[in-house]
Protein backbone atom coordinates (compact mmCIF):
# COMPACT_ATOMS: atom_id res chain seq x y z
CA UNK A 1 0.00 0.00 0.00
CA UNK A 2 1.22 3.47 -0.76
CA UNK A 3 1.46 4.94 2.72
CA UNK A 4 2.74 8.29 1.49
CA UNK A 5 -0.76 9.13 0.35
CA UNK A 6 -2.23 8.09 3.67
CA UNK A 7 -0.09 10.59 5.54
CA UNK A 8 -0.89 13.43 3.22
CA UNK A 9 -4.59 13.15 3.93
CA UNK A 10 -6.08 15.99 5.86
CA UNK A 11 -9.60 14.72 5.89
CA UNK A 12 -10.93 12.36 8.52
CA UNK A 13 -11.13 9.56 5.97
CA UNK A 14 -7.35 9.46 5.86
CA UNK A 15 -6.94 5.96 7.21
CA UNK A 16 -9.68 4.22 5.27
CA UNK A 17 -8.82 2.04 2.30
CA UNK A 18 -9.03 4.20 -0.86
CA UNK A 19 -11.87 3.59 -3.28
CA UNK A 20 -9.65 4.54 -6.16
CA UNK A 21 -5.89 4.36 -6.08
CA UNK A 22 -4.01 5.23 -9.24
CA UNK A 23 -0.24 4.75 -9.25
CA UNK A 24 2.04 6.13 -11.96
CA UNK A 25 -0.52 5.80 -14.74
CA UNK A 26 0.50 6.55 -18.31
CA UNK A 27 -1.85 6.52 -21.29
CA UNK A 28 -0.77 6.96 -24.89
CA UNK A 29 -2.76 6.80 -28.08
CA UNK A 30 -1.07 4.94 -30.91
CA UNK A 31 2.47 5.54 -29.68
CA UNK A 32 2.41 9.35 -29.73
CA UNK A 33 3.21 11.61 -26.79
CA UNK A 34 1.32 10.24 -23.81
CA UNK A 35 -2.04 11.90 -23.13
CA UNK A 36 -1.59 11.07 -19.43
CA UNK A 37 1.85 10.70 -17.88
CA UNK A 38 2.86 9.27 -14.50
CA UNK A 39 -0.33 10.21 -12.70
CA UNK A 40 -0.86 9.36 -9.02
CA UNK A 41 -4.31 9.91 -7.58
CA UNK A 42 -6.32 8.52 -4.69
CA UNK A 43 -9.94 8.92 -3.73
CA UNK A 44 -11.01 7.74 -0.27
CA UNK A 45 -14.53 6.76 0.77
CA UNK A 46 -16.77 9.77 1.02
CA UNK A 47 -14.16 12.07 -0.43
CA UNK A 48 -14.77 14.41 -3.35
CA UNK A 49 -11.66 14.88 -5.45
CA UNK A 50 -11.53 17.33 -8.31
CA UNK A 51 -9.33 17.12 -11.37
CA UNK A 52 -8.93 20.41 -13.13
CA UNK A 53 -7.11 21.24 -16.31
CA UNK A 54 -7.61 22.87 -19.65
CA UNK A 55 -9.00 21.16 -22.72
CA UNK A 56 -6.74 18.35 -23.94
CA UNK A 57 -4.84 18.00 -20.67
CA UNK A 58 -5.90 14.36 -20.38
CA UNK A 59 -8.75 14.51 -17.86
CA UNK A 60 -11.21 12.43 -19.86
CA UNK A 61 -8.51 9.91 -20.78
CA UNK A 62 -7.72 9.49 -17.08
CA UNK A 63 -11.37 9.11 -16.10
CA UNK A 64 -12.17 6.65 -18.87
CA UNK A 65 -9.06 4.60 -18.13
CA UNK A 66 -10.47 3.70 -14.70
CA UNK A 67 -13.23 1.56 -16.22
CA UNK A 68 -11.24 0.66 -19.36
CA UNK A 69 -13.54 2.67 -21.60
CA UNK A 70 -10.76 4.01 -23.82
CA UNK A 71 -10.61 3.05 -27.51
CA UNK A 72 -8.46 0.09 -28.58
CA UNK A 73 -5.68 2.44 -29.69
CA UNK A 74 -5.04 3.56 -26.10
CA UNK A 75 -2.15 1.87 -24.29
CA UNK A 76 -2.37 2.00 -20.51
CA UNK A 77 0.72 1.33 -18.39
CA UNK A 78 1.64 2.00 -14.78
CA UNK A 79 2.11 0.60 -11.29
CA UNK A 80 -1.45 0.03 -10.27
CA UNK A 81 -5.01 1.16 -10.87
CA UNK A 82 -7.05 -0.12 -7.95
CA UNK A 83 -10.78 0.28 -7.78
CA UNK A 84 -12.43 -0.95 -4.58
CA UNK A 85 -9.30 -2.89 -3.72
CA UNK A 86 -9.03 -4.70 -7.08
CA UNK A 87 -6.10 -3.88 -9.30
CA UNK A 88 -7.47 -3.43 -12.80
CA UNK A 89 -4.17 -2.99 -14.63
CA UNK A 90 -3.83 -6.13 -16.70
CA UNK A 91 -6.93 -7.62 -15.09
CA UNK A 92 -9.20 -9.71 -17.37
CA UNK A 93 -12.07 -7.88 -19.07
CA UNK A 94 -14.52 -9.80 -16.90
CA UNK A 95 -13.10 -8.29 -13.72
CA UNK A 96 -13.33 -4.81 -15.16
CA UNK A 97 -16.88 -5.43 -16.37
CA UNK A 98 -17.96 -6.58 -12.92
CA UNK A 99 -16.87 -3.23 -11.46
CA UNK A 100 -18.54 -1.14 -14.15
CA UNK A 101 -21.52 0.30 -12.34
CA UNK A 102 -21.27 -1.10 -8.81
CA UNK A 103 -17.56 -0.20 -8.45
CA UNK A 104 -17.60 3.09 -10.28
CA UNK A 105 -20.42 4.72 -12.21
CA UNK A 106 -19.78 7.36 -14.83
CA UNK A 107 -21.56 10.57 -15.65
CA UNK A 108 -20.58 11.84 -19.07
CA UNK A 109 -19.91 15.28 -20.42
CA UNK A 110 -22.76 15.48 -22.91
CA UNK A 111 -26.12 14.22 -21.62
CA UNK A 112 -27.73 14.71 -25.03
CA UNK A 113 -25.72 11.86 -26.57
CA UNK A 114 -25.42 9.69 -23.46
CA UNK A 115 -28.70 7.85 -24.14
CA UNK A 116 -29.89 5.91 -27.14
CA UNK A 117 -32.21 8.12 -29.20
CA UNK A 118 -34.33 5.13 -30.24
CA UNK A 119 -35.30 3.72 -26.84
CA UNK A 120 -37.36 5.16 -24.02
CA UNK A 121 -35.55 6.26 -20.89
CA UNK A 122 -37.46 3.64 -18.91
CA UNK A 123 -36.26 0.91 -21.26
CA UNK A 124 -32.64 2.06 -20.97
CA UNK A 125 -32.67 2.49 -17.20
CA UNK A 126 -34.24 -0.96 -16.83
CA UNK A 127 -31.50 -2.44 -19.01
CA UNK A 128 -28.88 -0.94 -16.69
CA UNK A 129 -30.31 -3.17 -13.97
CA UNK A 130 -29.54 -6.26 -16.07
CA UNK A 131 -27.43 -7.76 -13.30
CA UNK A 132 -30.43 -8.18 -11.06
CA UNK A 133 -32.11 -11.30 -12.40
CA UNK A 134 -34.34 -11.89 -9.40
CA UNK A 135 -36.14 -8.55 -9.23
CA UNK A 136 -39.45 -8.31 -11.06
CA UNK A 137 -40.21 -5.62 -13.61
CA UNK A 138 -42.28 -3.74 -11.02
CA UNK A 139 -39.50 -3.84 -8.43
CA UNK A 140 -37.03 -2.45 -10.95
CA UNK A 141 -39.53 0.23 -11.90
CA UNK A 142 -39.93 1.22 -8.25
CA UNK A 143 -36.18 1.48 -7.81
CA UNK A 144 -35.86 3.61 -10.95
CA UNK A 145 -38.68 5.90 -9.85
CA UNK A 146 -37.03 6.27 -6.45
CA UNK A 147 -33.71 7.47 -7.88
CA UNK A 148 -35.45 9.73 -10.38
CA UNK A 149 -37.27 11.34 -7.45
CA UNK A 150 -34.01 11.60 -5.58
CA UNK A 151 -32.43 13.64 -8.38
CA UNK A 152 -35.46 15.91 -8.46
CA UNK A 153 -36.83 15.01 -11.87
CA UNK A 154 -40.40 16.28 -12.06
CA UNK A 155 -43.08 13.68 -12.86
CA UNK A 156 -40.71 10.68 -13.00
CA UNK A 157 -43.35 8.09 -13.95
CA UNK A 158 -44.20 9.96 -17.15
CA UNK A 159 -40.50 10.43 -17.98
CA UNK A 160 -40.01 6.69 -18.19
CA UNK A 161 -42.11 6.67 -21.34
CA UNK A 162 -40.25 9.55 -23.00
CA UNK A 163 -37.35 9.52 -25.43
CA UNK A 164 -34.13 11.45 -24.74
CA UNK A 165 -34.84 14.10 -27.37
CA UNK A 166 -37.99 15.10 -25.49
CA UNK A 167 -36.03 16.26 -22.43
CA UNK A 168 -33.72 19.23 -21.90
CA UNK A 169 -29.98 18.77 -21.33
CA UNK A 170 -30.34 19.55 -17.64
CA UNK A 171 -33.12 17.01 -17.18
CA UNK A 172 -31.14 14.39 -19.08
CA UNK A 173 -28.12 15.00 -16.89
CA UNK A 174 -30.38 14.42 -13.88
CA UNK A 175 -31.45 11.14 -15.44
CA UNK A 176 -27.78 10.28 -16.05
CA UNK A 177 -27.01 10.97 -12.39
CA UNK A 178 -30.01 8.87 -11.40
CA UNK A 179 -28.70 6.06 -13.59
CA UNK A 180 -25.37 6.22 -11.79
CA UNK A 181 -27.10 6.20 -8.38
CA UNK A 182 -29.12 3.19 -9.44
CA UNK A 183 -25.86 1.22 -9.33
CA UNK A 184 -25.18 2.21 -5.70
CA UNK A 185 -21.56 2.76 -6.72
CA UNK A 186 -18.59 3.15 -4.40
CA UNK A 187 -17.28 5.90 -6.67
CA UNK A 188 -19.02 8.38 -8.92
CA UNK A 189 -16.89 9.61 -11.81
CA UNK A 190 -18.32 12.81 -13.23
CA UNK A 191 -16.57 13.98 -16.41
CA UNK A 192 -17.44 17.64 -16.78
CA UNK A 193 -21.08 16.98 -15.95
CA UNK A 194 -22.07 20.62 -16.37
CA UNK A 195 -19.98 21.74 -19.35
CA UNK A 196 -22.73 21.06 -21.89
CA UNK A 197 -25.32 22.86 -19.78
CA UNK A 198 -26.22 26.52 -19.39
CA UNK A 199 -25.39 28.43 -16.23
CA UNK A 200 -28.68 27.93 -14.37
CA UNK A 201 -28.64 24.23 -15.14
CA UNK A 202 -25.02 24.04 -14.05
CA UNK A 203 -25.89 25.53 -10.67
CA UNK A 204 -28.79 23.11 -10.25
CA UNK A 205 -26.74 20.06 -11.12
CA UNK A 206 -23.92 21.10 -8.79
CA UNK A 207 -26.44 21.67 -6.03
CA UNK A 208 -27.81 18.20 -6.66
CA UNK A 209 -24.36 16.62 -6.52
CA UNK A 210 -23.60 18.38 -3.25
CA UNK A 211 -26.85 17.06 -1.83
CA UNK A 212 -26.09 13.53 -2.97
CA UNK A 213 -22.71 13.71 -1.42
CA UNK A 214 -24.18 14.79 1.90
CA UNK A 215 -26.96 12.17 1.78
CA UNK A 216 -25.22 9.09 0.44
CA UNK A 217 -21.61 9.77 1.29
CA UNK A 218 -20.52 8.43 -2.10
CA UNK A 219 -16.96 9.20 -3.15
CA UNK A 220 -16.79 11.44 -6.22
CA UNK A 221 -14.12 12.06 -8.81
CA UNK A 222 -15.15 15.37 -10.31
CA UNK A 223 -13.55 16.44 -13.54
CA UNK A 224 -13.81 19.99 -14.73
CA UNK A 225 -11.98 22.82 -16.42
CA UNK A 226 -13.88 25.27 -14.28
CA UNK A 227 -12.46 26.39 -10.95
CA UNK A 228 -15.88 27.45 -9.72
CA UNK A 229 -17.23 23.93 -10.05
CA UNK A 230 -14.25 22.49 -8.17
CA UNK A 231 -14.47 25.10 -5.41
CA UNK A 232 -18.16 24.37 -5.05
CA UNK A 233 -18.02 20.71 -4.10
CA UNK A 234 -14.51 19.29 -3.80
CA UNK A 235 -12.38 18.49 -0.75
CA UNK A 236 -9.21 18.02 -2.69
CA UNK A 237 -8.12 19.06 -6.13
CA UNK A 238 -5.46 17.84 -8.55
CA UNK A 239 -4.34 20.29 -11.22
CA UNK A 240 -3.58 18.62 -14.52
CA UNK A 241 -1.45 20.11 -17.24
CA UNK A 242 -0.32 18.39 -20.43
CA UNK A 243 -1.03 14.93 -19.04
CA UNK A 244 0.67 15.41 -15.67
CA UNK A 245 -0.65 16.32 -12.28
CA UNK A 246 1.33 19.43 -11.51
CA UNK A 247 -0.18 20.34 -8.16
CA UNK A 248 -2.40 18.63 -5.63
CA UNK A 249 -3.89 19.61 -2.28
CA UNK A 250 -6.98 20.62 -0.40
CA UNK A 251 -9.19 23.10 -2.16
CA UNK A 252 -8.55 25.67 0.56
CA UNK A 253 -4.78 25.32 0.32
CA UNK A 254 -4.67 25.57 -3.44
CA UNK A 255 -7.10 28.45 -3.65
CA UNK A 256 -5.26 30.31 -0.90
CA UNK A 257 -1.80 29.69 -2.28
CA UNK A 258 -1.44 28.30 -5.78
CA UNK A 259 2.18 27.22 -6.19
CA UNK A 260 2.51 26.03 -9.73
CA UNK A 261 2.67 28.65 -12.49
CA UNK A 262 0.00 26.81 -14.43
CA UNK A 263 -2.37 26.92 -11.46
CA UNK A 264 -1.67 30.61 -11.12
CA UNK A 265 -2.39 31.11 -14.81
CA UNK A 266 -5.62 29.18 -14.36
CA UNK A 267 -6.65 31.49 -11.55
CA UNK A 268 -5.69 34.52 -13.59
CA UNK A 269 -7.87 33.31 -16.41
CA UNK A 270 -10.81 32.78 -14.16
CA UNK A 271 -10.36 36.18 -12.53
CA UNK A 272 -10.10 38.01 -15.83
CA UNK A 273 -13.21 36.14 -16.81
CA UNK A 274 -15.04 37.58 -13.85
CA UNK A 275 -13.60 41.07 -14.32
CA UNK A 276 -14.28 41.45 -18.01
CA UNK A 277 -17.50 39.49 -17.94
CA UNK A 278 -16.67 37.60 -21.09
CA UNK A 279 -18.27 34.25 -21.33
CA UNK A 280 -15.37 32.29 -22.82
CA UNK A 281 -12.25 31.23 -21.05
CA UNK A 282 -9.18 32.88 -22.61
CA UNK A 283 -6.59 30.53 -24.04
CA UNK A 284 -3.50 30.09 -21.92
CA UNK A 285 -0.34 31.42 -23.51
CA UNK A 286 1.93 28.38 -23.41
CA UNK A 287 4.99 30.27 -24.65
CA UNK A 288 4.76 32.73 -21.78
CA UNK A 289 4.23 29.85 -19.41
CA UNK A 290 7.35 28.09 -20.62
CA UNK A 291 9.39 31.22 -20.08
CA UNK A 292 8.25 31.59 -16.49
CA UNK A 293 8.39 27.88 -15.75
CA UNK A 294 11.50 26.14 -17.06
CA UNK A 295 10.31 22.90 -15.40
CA UNK A 296 7.51 22.59 -17.87
CA UNK A 297 9.72 22.65 -20.91
CA UNK A 298 9.13 19.48 -22.85
CA UNK A 299 6.07 18.68 -20.84
CA UNK A 300 3.93 19.23 -23.89
Amino acid at each position, binding site marked *: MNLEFGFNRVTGAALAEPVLDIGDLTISYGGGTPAVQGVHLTVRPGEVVGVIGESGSGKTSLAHAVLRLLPQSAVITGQHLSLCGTDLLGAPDKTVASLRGPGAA*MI*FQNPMTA*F*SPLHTLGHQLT*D*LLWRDRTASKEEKRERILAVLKQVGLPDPAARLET*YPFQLSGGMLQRVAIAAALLMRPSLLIADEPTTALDVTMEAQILHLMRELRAESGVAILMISHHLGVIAEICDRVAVMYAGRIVEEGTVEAIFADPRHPYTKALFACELSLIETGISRMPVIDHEALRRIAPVMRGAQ
Partner: protein
Amino acid sequence: MTFFILRRIGLGLVILLIVALLLFGMMHMIPGDPTVVALGPRSTPEMREAFRQLMGLDRPIFEQLGLFLGRLSQGNLGEDVWSRRPVLTMILEVLPYTVTLAVASFIWAVALGIVLGCAAVVHHGRWPDWLIGVLSVGLVAVPSFVVSLYSLLIFAVTLNWLPAIGAGEPGDIMGQARALILPSFAIGLGWVGYVSRIVRAAMIEAMGEAYVRTLRSFGVPERKIIYRYALKQAFLAVLSVIAIGFGGLLTGSVFAEIVFSRPGLGKMTYDAVISRNYPVVMGTVLMTSGLYVTCMIIADVVTAFLDPRVRSAL
Protein backbone atom coordinates in the same frame (compact mmCIF):
# COMPACT_ATOMS: atom_id res chain seq x y z
CA MET B 1 -49.25 9.78 -39.46
CA THR B 2 -52.08 9.52 -41.99
CA PHE B 3 -51.13 12.89 -43.42
CA PHE B 4 -47.50 11.77 -43.62
CA ILE B 5 -48.45 8.63 -45.53
CA LEU B 6 -50.75 10.57 -47.86
CA ARG B 7 -47.96 13.04 -48.55
CA ARG B 8 -45.57 10.20 -49.35
CA ILE B 9 -48.12 8.68 -51.72
CA GLY B 10 -48.60 12.09 -53.36
CA LEU B 11 -44.86 12.37 -53.83
CA GLY B 12 -44.80 8.87 -55.28
CA LEU B 13 -47.46 9.83 -57.82
CA VAL B 14 -45.43 12.88 -58.81
CA ILE B 15 -42.40 10.65 -59.39
CA LEU B 16 -44.51 8.32 -61.53
CA LEU B 17 -45.79 11.29 -63.52
CA ILE B 18 -42.23 12.39 -64.20
CA VAL B 19 -41.31 8.86 -65.31
CA ALA B 20 -44.34 8.83 -67.62
CA LEU B 21 -43.36 12.20 -69.11
CA LEU B 22 -39.80 10.99 -69.68
CA LEU B 23 -41.09 7.86 -71.39
CA PHE B 24 -43.40 9.93 -73.55
CA GLY B 25 -40.55 12.27 -74.43
CA MET B 26 -38.26 9.39 -75.30
CA MET B 27 -40.81 7.85 -77.63
CA HIS B 28 -40.89 11.08 -79.54
CA MET B 29 -37.19 11.71 -79.48
CA ILE B 30 -36.24 8.43 -81.06
CA PRO B 31 -35.14 9.48 -84.55
CA GLY B 32 -37.14 8.27 -87.56
CA ASP B 33 -40.75 7.39 -88.03
CA PRO B 34 -42.08 6.38 -84.63
CA THR B 35 -44.30 3.79 -86.21
CA VAL B 36 -41.31 2.12 -87.85
CA VAL B 37 -39.44 2.34 -84.58
CA ALA B 38 -42.36 0.90 -82.70
CA LEU B 39 -43.41 -1.77 -85.14
CA GLY B 40 -40.08 -2.60 -86.65
CA PRO B 41 -38.90 -2.30 -90.25
CA ARG B 42 -40.83 -5.34 -91.41
CA SER B 43 -44.22 -3.84 -90.60
CA THR B 44 -46.65 -3.23 -93.45
CA PRO B 45 -47.90 0.29 -94.27
CA GLU B 46 -51.38 -0.73 -93.12
CA MET B 47 -50.07 -1.76 -89.76
CA ARG B 48 -48.22 1.55 -89.46
CA GLU B 49 -51.31 3.53 -90.32
CA ALA B 50 -53.35 1.58 -87.81
CA PHE B 51 -50.71 2.14 -85.19
CA ARG B 52 -50.60 5.87 -86.01
CA GLN B 53 -54.34 6.08 -85.53
CA LEU B 54 -54.25 3.99 -82.40
CA MET B 55 -51.54 6.02 -80.72
CA GLY B 56 -52.92 9.30 -82.05
CA LEU B 57 -49.59 10.10 -83.66
CA ASP B 58 -51.30 12.19 -86.33
CA ARG B 59 -52.49 14.71 -83.77
CA PRO B 60 -50.63 17.70 -82.23
CA ILE B 61 -48.08 16.70 -79.60
CA PHE B 62 -49.85 18.27 -76.63
CA GLU B 63 -53.06 16.54 -77.53
CA GLN B 64 -51.10 13.31 -77.72
CA LEU B 65 -49.63 13.96 -74.32
CA GLY B 66 -53.07 14.66 -72.90
CA LEU B 67 -54.43 11.45 -74.38
CA PHE B 68 -51.43 9.50 -73.12
CA LEU B 69 -51.80 10.76 -69.56
CA GLY B 70 -55.55 10.39 -69.72
CA ARG B 71 -55.20 6.73 -70.65
CA LEU B 72 -52.60 6.19 -67.96
CA SER B 73 -54.81 7.68 -65.27
CA GLN B 74 -57.44 5.09 -66.16
CA GLY B 75 -54.88 2.34 -65.77
CA ASN B 76 -54.68 1.81 -69.50
CA LEU B 77 -51.08 1.04 -70.40
CA GLY B 78 -51.80 0.42 -74.07
CA GLU B 79 -51.72 -2.78 -76.08
CA ASP B 80 -49.09 -5.25 -77.07
CA VAL B 81 -48.08 -4.36 -80.64
CA TRP B 82 -48.15 -7.96 -81.78
CA SER B 83 -50.76 -9.81 -79.78
CA ARG B 84 -53.05 -6.82 -79.27
CA ARG B 85 -53.57 -7.81 -75.64
CA PRO B 86 -53.79 -5.05 -73.02
CA VAL B 87 -50.35 -4.49 -71.49
CA LEU B 88 -51.78 -4.17 -68.00
CA THR B 89 -53.37 -7.61 -68.23
CA MET B 90 -50.09 -9.08 -69.41
CA ILE B 91 -48.20 -7.45 -66.55
CA LEU B 92 -50.70 -8.54 -63.93
CA GLU B 93 -50.34 -12.09 -65.20
CA VAL B 94 -46.60 -12.25 -64.56
CA LEU B 95 -46.45 -9.91 -61.57
CA PRO B 96 -47.26 -12.56 -58.92
CA TYR B 97 -44.32 -14.70 -60.12
CA THR B 98 -41.95 -11.77 -59.95
CA VAL B 99 -43.15 -10.56 -56.58
CA THR B 100 -43.01 -14.04 -55.01
CA LEU B 101 -39.51 -14.58 -56.35
CA ALA B 102 -38.33 -11.16 -55.17
CA VAL B 103 -39.89 -11.56 -51.73
CA ALA B 104 -38.50 -15.07 -51.28
CA SER B 105 -34.98 -14.03 -52.34
CA PHE B 106 -35.20 -10.87 -50.28
CA ILE B 107 -36.31 -12.48 -47.04
CA TRP B 108 -33.67 -15.19 -46.81
CA ALA B 109 -30.89 -12.97 -48.16
CA VAL B 110 -31.60 -10.04 -45.85
CA ALA B 111 -32.05 -12.30 -42.83
CA LEU B 112 -28.77 -14.11 -43.47
CA GLY B 113 -27.03 -10.84 -44.40
CA ILE B 114 -28.06 -9.25 -41.11
CA VAL B 115 -26.92 -12.30 -39.13
CA LEU B 116 -23.53 -12.32 -40.90
CA GLY B 117 -23.16 -8.54 -40.52
CA CYS B 118 -23.86 -8.79 -36.79
CA ALA B 119 -21.51 -11.76 -36.41
CA ALA B 120 -18.77 -9.74 -38.10
CA VAL B 121 -19.32 -6.91 -35.61
CA VAL B 122 -19.42 -9.25 -32.61
CA HIS B 123 -16.02 -10.63 -33.68
CA HIS B 124 -14.80 -7.29 -35.00
CA GLY B 125 -11.13 -7.46 -36.02
CA ARG B 126 -10.81 -11.19 -35.40
CA TRP B 127 -10.82 -14.06 -37.88
CA PRO B 128 -14.63 -14.53 -38.19
CA ASP B 129 -14.85 -10.89 -39.24
CA TRP B 130 -12.21 -11.48 -41.90
CA LEU B 131 -13.84 -14.66 -43.09
CA ILE B 132 -17.27 -13.03 -43.36
CA GLY B 133 -15.67 -10.08 -45.15
CA VAL B 134 -13.97 -12.24 -47.78
CA LEU B 135 -17.10 -14.36 -48.17
CA SER B 136 -19.34 -11.31 -48.57
CA VAL B 137 -17.19 -9.63 -51.17
CA GLY B 138 -16.93 -12.95 -52.99
CA LEU B 139 -20.70 -13.37 -52.99
CA VAL B 140 -21.22 -9.84 -54.29
CA ALA B 141 -18.67 -10.42 -57.04
CA VAL B 142 -20.21 -13.61 -58.45
CA PRO B 143 -22.79 -12.68 -61.13
CA SER B 144 -26.24 -14.10 -60.50
CA PHE B 145 -26.37 -15.83 -63.89
CA VAL B 146 -23.29 -17.85 -62.95
CA VAL B 147 -24.96 -18.89 -59.71
CA SER B 148 -28.13 -19.63 -61.67
CA LEU B 149 -26.34 -21.88 -64.14
CA TYR B 150 -24.26 -23.75 -61.59
CA SER B 151 -27.08 -24.27 -59.12
CA LEU B 152 -29.21 -25.51 -62.01
CA LEU B 153 -26.51 -27.95 -63.06
CA ILE B 154 -25.79 -29.21 -59.57
CA PHE B 155 -29.15 -29.35 -57.82
CA ALA B 156 -31.49 -29.90 -60.75
CA VAL B 157 -29.49 -31.81 -63.37
CA THR B 158 -26.87 -33.80 -61.44
CA LEU B 159 -28.59 -34.38 -58.10
CA ASN B 160 -32.10 -34.04 -59.49
CA TRP B 161 -33.39 -32.69 -56.18
CA LEU B 162 -35.27 -29.72 -57.49
CA PRO B 163 -37.12 -28.82 -60.69
CA ALA B 164 -34.90 -27.27 -63.34
CA ILE B 165 -37.35 -25.02 -65.09
CA GLY B 166 -40.75 -23.42 -64.76
CA ALA B 167 -42.61 -21.93 -61.86
CA GLY B 168 -44.71 -24.93 -60.85
CA GLU B 169 -48.26 -25.81 -61.82
CA PRO B 170 -51.03 -23.41 -60.75
CA GLY B 171 -52.65 -24.64 -57.55
CA ASP B 172 -49.69 -26.84 -56.65
CA ILE B 173 -48.29 -24.82 -53.75
CA MET B 174 -45.55 -27.30 -52.89
CA GLY B 175 -44.44 -27.50 -56.50
CA GLN B 176 -44.38 -23.73 -56.77
CA ALA B 177 -42.37 -23.47 -53.59
CA ARG B 178 -39.89 -26.06 -54.85
CA ALA B 179 -39.58 -24.20 -58.13
CA LEU B 180 -38.81 -21.07 -56.17
CA ILE B 181 -35.81 -22.46 -54.28
CA LEU B 182 -33.12 -22.40 -56.96
CA PRO B 183 -33.97 -19.02 -58.53
CA SER B 184 -34.32 -17.32 -55.17
CA PHE B 185 -31.01 -18.85 -54.11
CA ALA B 186 -29.36 -17.56 -57.27
CA ILE B 187 -30.78 -14.06 -56.91
CA GLY B 188 -30.38 -13.77 -53.15
CA LEU B 189 -26.80 -15.01 -52.86
CA GLY B 190 -25.15 -11.78 -53.99
CA TRP B 191 -27.54 -9.93 -51.76
CA VAL B 192 -26.37 -11.79 -48.68
CA GLY B 193 -22.88 -10.37 -49.18
CA TYR B 194 -24.15 -6.90 -49.94
CA VAL B 195 -26.48 -6.75 -46.94
CA SER B 196 -23.86 -8.19 -44.60
CA ARG B 197 -21.40 -5.48 -45.68
CA ILE B 198 -23.76 -2.54 -45.24
CA VAL B 199 -25.13 -3.92 -41.97
CA ARG B 200 -21.58 -4.34 -40.67
CA ALA B 201 -20.67 -0.77 -41.63
CA ALA B 202 -23.84 0.65 -40.07
CA MET B 203 -23.33 -1.43 -36.92
CA ILE B 204 -19.74 -0.28 -36.52
CA GLU B 205 -20.93 3.29 -36.81
CA ALA B 206 -23.66 2.65 -34.24
CA MET B 207 -21.16 1.01 -31.87
CA GLY B 208 -19.12 4.22 -31.95
CA GLU B 209 -22.00 6.29 -30.57
CA ALA B 210 -21.64 7.88 -27.16
CA TYR B 211 -24.63 6.01 -25.75
CA VAL B 212 -22.86 2.70 -26.41
CA ARG B 213 -20.05 3.92 -24.17
CA THR B 214 -22.64 4.80 -21.53
CA LEU B 215 -24.09 1.28 -21.69
CA ARG B 216 -20.60 -0.20 -21.51
CA SER B 217 -19.74 1.99 -18.53
CA PHE B 218 -22.61 0.29 -16.70
CA GLY B 219 -21.25 -3.12 -17.59
CA VAL B 220 -24.16 -3.97 -19.90
CA PRO B 221 -22.99 -7.08 -21.83
CA GLU B 222 -21.68 -6.42 -25.32
CA ARG B 223 -24.17 -8.79 -26.95
CA LYS B 224 -27.06 -6.98 -25.35
CA ILE B 225 -25.69 -3.66 -26.62
CA ILE B 226 -25.24 -5.06 -30.11
CA TYR B 227 -28.61 -6.78 -30.48
CA ARG B 228 -30.83 -4.50 -28.41
CA TYR B 229 -29.40 -1.12 -29.30
CA ALA B 230 -26.94 -0.95 -32.19
CA LEU B 231 -28.96 -3.27 -34.42
CA LYS B 232 -32.03 -1.03 -34.25
CA GLN B 233 -30.00 2.01 -35.23
CA ALA B 234 -28.15 0.11 -37.96
CA PHE B 235 -31.40 -1.31 -39.31
CA LEU B 236 -32.85 2.19 -39.61
CA ALA B 237 -29.72 3.31 -41.40
CA VAL B 238 -29.79 0.52 -43.98
CA LEU B 239 -33.56 0.33 -44.42
CA SER B 240 -33.86 2.77 -47.32
CA VAL B 241 -30.85 1.22 -49.10
CA ILE B 242 -32.41 -2.21 -48.73
CA ALA B 243 -35.77 -0.90 -49.97
CA ILE B 244 -34.16 0.44 -53.13
CA GLY B 245 -32.44 -2.91 -53.49
CA PHE B 246 -35.78 -4.68 -53.25
CA GLY B 247 -37.01 -2.55 -56.11
CA GLY B 248 -33.94 -3.69 -58.02
CA LEU B 249 -34.73 -7.33 -57.26
CA LEU B 250 -38.06 -6.95 -59.04
CA THR B 251 -36.35 -6.23 -62.33
CA GLY B 252 -32.90 -7.62 -61.61
CA SER B 253 -34.13 -11.18 -61.81
CA VAL B 254 -33.91 -11.30 -65.63
CA PHE B 255 -31.09 -13.85 -65.72
CA ALA B 256 -32.66 -16.16 -63.21
CA GLU B 257 -35.99 -15.91 -65.04
CA ILE B 258 -34.33 -16.76 -68.34
CA VAL B 259 -32.17 -19.59 -66.99
CA PHE B 260 -35.05 -21.16 -65.08
CA SER B 261 -37.65 -20.28 -67.74
CA ARG B 262 -39.89 -18.54 -65.25
CA PRO B 263 -42.48 -16.02 -66.34
CA GLY B 264 -41.77 -12.62 -64.79
CA LEU B 265 -41.51 -8.89 -65.20
CA GLY B 266 -37.78 -8.99 -65.91
CA LYS B 267 -38.12 -11.52 -68.69
CA MET B 268 -41.13 -9.71 -70.10
CA THR B 269 -39.20 -6.42 -70.24
CA TYR B 270 -36.26 -8.17 -71.83
CA ASP B 271 -38.41 -9.82 -74.50
CA ALA B 272 -40.22 -6.57 -75.20
CA VAL B 273 -36.96 -4.66 -75.64
CA ILE B 274 -35.59 -7.32 -78.00
CA SER B 275 -38.75 -7.28 -80.12
CA ARG B 276 -39.09 -3.49 -79.89
CA ASN B 277 -42.51 -3.85 -78.36
CA TYR B 278 -42.62 -0.28 -77.08
CA PRO B 279 -46.00 -0.23 -75.35
CA VAL B 280 -44.93 -3.26 -73.33
CA VAL B 281 -41.56 -1.69 -72.51
CA MET B 282 -43.31 1.46 -71.35
CA GLY B 283 -45.82 -0.49 -69.35
CA THR B 284 -43.21 -2.61 -67.58
CA VAL B 285 -41.00 0.41 -66.89
CA LEU B 286 -43.95 2.27 -65.40
CA MET B 287 -44.94 -0.75 -63.35
CA THR B 288 -41.40 -1.21 -62.07
CA SER B 289 -41.23 2.47 -61.14
CA GLY B 290 -44.52 2.06 -59.33
CA LEU B 291 -43.11 -0.88 -57.37
CA TYR B 292 -39.95 1.08 -56.54
CA VAL B 293 -42.01 3.99 -55.30
CA THR B 294 -44.14 1.64 -53.21
CA CYS B 295 -41.01 0.16 -51.61
CA MET B 296 -39.74 3.63 -50.78
CA ILE B 297 -43.06 4.61 -49.22
CA ILE B 298 -43.06 1.46 -47.10
CA ALA B 299 -39.45 2.10 -46.04
CA ASP B 300 -40.28 5.70 -45.10
CA VAL B 301 -43.30 4.65 -43.08
CA VAL B 302 -41.35 1.92 -41.28
CA THR B 303 -38.55 4.40 -40.52
CA ALA B 304 -41.05 6.89 -39.16
CA PHE B 305 -42.60 4.18 -37.07
CA LEU B 306 -39.30 2.96 -35.60
CA ASP B 307 -37.60 6.32 -35.06
CA PRO B 308 -39.29 8.24 -32.24
CA ARG B 309 -37.76 11.52 -33.41
CA VAL B 310 -39.31 11.21 -36.85
CA ARG B 311 -42.55 9.79 -35.46
CA SER B 312 -43.11 12.66 -33.07
CA ALA B 313 -42.37 15.25 -35.74
CA LEU B 314 -45.29 14.00 -37.83
